[in-house]
């Protein structure tokens, strides 16, 4: 009876392991991928009690059987965890990450976002510097007529633009650029949406209204980077268990085969 349970449990595990081969060979038209996944889940689940019956609900005393049982438990628990994560997290990601992209392309897109931000910031700074240069001509004319308008001199307006340009340059160099460059940027101020919003609100106060759309684009880039970082974290949860599940499964199958050989030999 123990042999029957052991054989069935091993067969189930072997089938579950073939899912990897099925994925490697997508054109291998033996059943639908969803059927293979269902088979992987249910037969893999069933293999655990079968092996428990086979072992008489003990870890085994030999080092090999004990290692096999520990590997099986690790595979079983990581599989359950993975199944649960794969069931809930994709939905969660769809709702929380509207800018979700292909995980493998996140770095590439972050680079593009950085370039995009560079261009935007350069545009803004150029525009502000152009204002300053034009303002200098007016300032000179006003200064010549020694007039003022509404108590506000052109000189004070020029000072505001200068401060805005400085603030923008500082924000970009100190906060925005590192945030867009780094893969793990959760410790930076821009990684926090609320803080980022505060920064951009302060900039809006400093910048003339006609520059606000570009500032908005810059804010959108930061928001997208935050989402991509969030996607990266969720992806680690969603697929990180595979780093345990798959290698341990292969080890289990390899040791299981040895166990079968030695057991049948004796």
């Amino acid at each position, binding site marked *: 009876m123990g*042999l029957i349970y052991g054989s069935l449990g091993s067969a189930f595990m072997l089938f579950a392991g073939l899912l990897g081969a099925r994925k490697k060979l997508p054109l291998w038209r033996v059943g639908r991928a969803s059927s293979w996944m269902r088979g992987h889940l249910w037969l893999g689940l069933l293999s655990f009690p079968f092996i428990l019956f086979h072992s008489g609900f*003990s870890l*085994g*005393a*030999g*080092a*090999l*059987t004990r*290692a096999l049982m520990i*590997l099986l438990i690790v595979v079983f628990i990581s599989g359950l965890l993975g199944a649960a994560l794969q069931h809930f997290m994709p939905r969660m990601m769809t709702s929380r990450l509207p*800018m979700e*992209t*292909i*995980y*493998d*392309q996140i770095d*590439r*897109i972050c680079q*593009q976002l950085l370039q*995009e931000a560079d261009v935007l910031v350069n545009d803004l700074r150029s525009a502000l510097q152009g204002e300053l240069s034009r303002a200098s001509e007016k300032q000179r004319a006003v200064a010549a007529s020694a007039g003022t308008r509404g108590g506000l001199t052109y000189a004070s307006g020029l000072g505001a633009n200068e401060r805005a340009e400085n603030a923008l340059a500082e924000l970009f160099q100190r906060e925005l650029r590192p945030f867009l460059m780094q893969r793990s940027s959760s410790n930076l101020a821009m990684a926090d949406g609320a803080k980022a919003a505060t920064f951009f609100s302060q900039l809006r106060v400093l910048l003339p209204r006609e520059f606000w*759309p570009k500032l*908005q*684009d810059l804010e*959108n*880039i930061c928001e997208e980077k935050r989402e991509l970082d969030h996607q990266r974290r969720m992806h680690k949860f969603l*697929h990180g268990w*595979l*780093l345990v599940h*798959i*290698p*341990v499964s*292969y*080890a289990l*199958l*390899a*040791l299981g085969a*040895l*166990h079968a050989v*030695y*057991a*049948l*030999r*004796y």
Partner: protein
Amino acid sequence: MPRVRTAKSLAKRIDLQYFTQRTPFRRWRLLLSIMLPVLAVGWVIGQSALRNQQIYSSGPLSSAHAVFGQQCASCHVRGASYSAPVEDKACLACHDGPAHNQQQTFLPSCSSCHVEHRGSERLAATADFACTQCHSDLRTRDGGLRFDPHISGFDHAHPQFAALRPGYRDPGTIRLNHYVHLQPTLRGPAGAVQLQCYDCHRPTNVNEPWPYSVAVIQPASQQPVMVGLAEGQQRKRRSVEAGPGAYMSQIKYVNQCAACHVLQFDPLIQTPAPHDRPEVVHAFIVQKLTDYVKAHPEVLSADPNAFPAADISRNVLQPLGQLQPARNFLHPLEQGAPIPAQAARPSTPLLTADQWVGQRTATAERLLWEKNCKVCHKVTEGGGTGLPTYVKAVIPVRWFSHAEFDHQAHRMMKCTACHTTIPQSRRTSDINIPGIEICRDCHQQKGPGKQAAEGRCFECHSYHDWRQEQRVPGRFDIRQLRGSGPSAPPLSAGSDASAAAPATK
């Protein structure tokens, strides 16, 4: 122009060949998927290279077989299938397995009862199923049934012990009244005594002097007699499984009775008569009296009444009120006292030596045959020799003929805790072993699991009758046994192991 995110603009950001490149996640997954199985297989191969067979073990071996831990092939004979248990020939290669009963219709394999790889548990501690697979619905080859055919466990479906079942008769022939022997007014060799169970009943491994042995009245004697196990006390089990104190010593007159039930036959003779057959006793008495009259010829001319015969009442149990002082078995003459005046008449002898011996012998034997011996023994008609004959004393040494009991294992108990009827037992025919219901108070089938004493079949019964064990020649040397030398010679169908198998197989 504001930043626009259309599907097309988003798609343009993606590298269409991205799947051809390995990301760190994929790289790690591949690396681990290769490394871990390789490490696992390498570990097994390494253990094989180190000749460590322990890693394949399905569990620790029993302590009896632990020495074979590195020699799997000693029991797992090559070619045996995993689904098949270890073959009997592997077991029989080292030790015999005496058959259970010639009438059994089914012979289980060794490993179906003795399950190995369960740790230090005794291999003899078999599951009840090993026994009940036959005994719950017993069938025999000849169709006859000498045992209850429906025994499925100790808790419920087990018959009362045979000695306590209706119709059983105590085979003992010695008259004994336990009640009297436990009274505080009992007369002992030196005054009143209160006997304890331990004074007469002791496990065979106890090597202390008996308090009421013949040595009390004859310090120079070679007593007490060392009493070995009776044939009935030879255990079916191996001795290592039960201590030598499992059974009580046989009751012997010289050890347990002699100090109180003295066989003194004549006040002139110090030495009591031997506890032996009547003809031996008769020869002893004649010899002693003949020797005495040779040493003391003056008794032939003395008044016979001056030397009264032995006090015939002294050897019978008496109430304490009539108790006499400590005994002195020496006659005054033997102690050097002068012959009484009225006895020392200087006249010619009244009797010849033979007549004197004949008279004294008759008196002594009347005392012994009519009083002393009959206290315990049943007399049958004489054999024509003039001497009485007695029914052979049969004191059962073992009441469970098909089960084992170990008094040593129960030494923490008071005797009367189980032998509850003893204090009130007045008749010889009383059987005072405890009934099964008393055993069940402590012993239960799921004993250790229920915080009770073990109650599975093996606790009392042994499948193999180890008294029938045949010697099996050894086949290992130390290096083979410890796995540091060449393997033991393989077993084959024609090997000694098969030859050692019981004929019933």
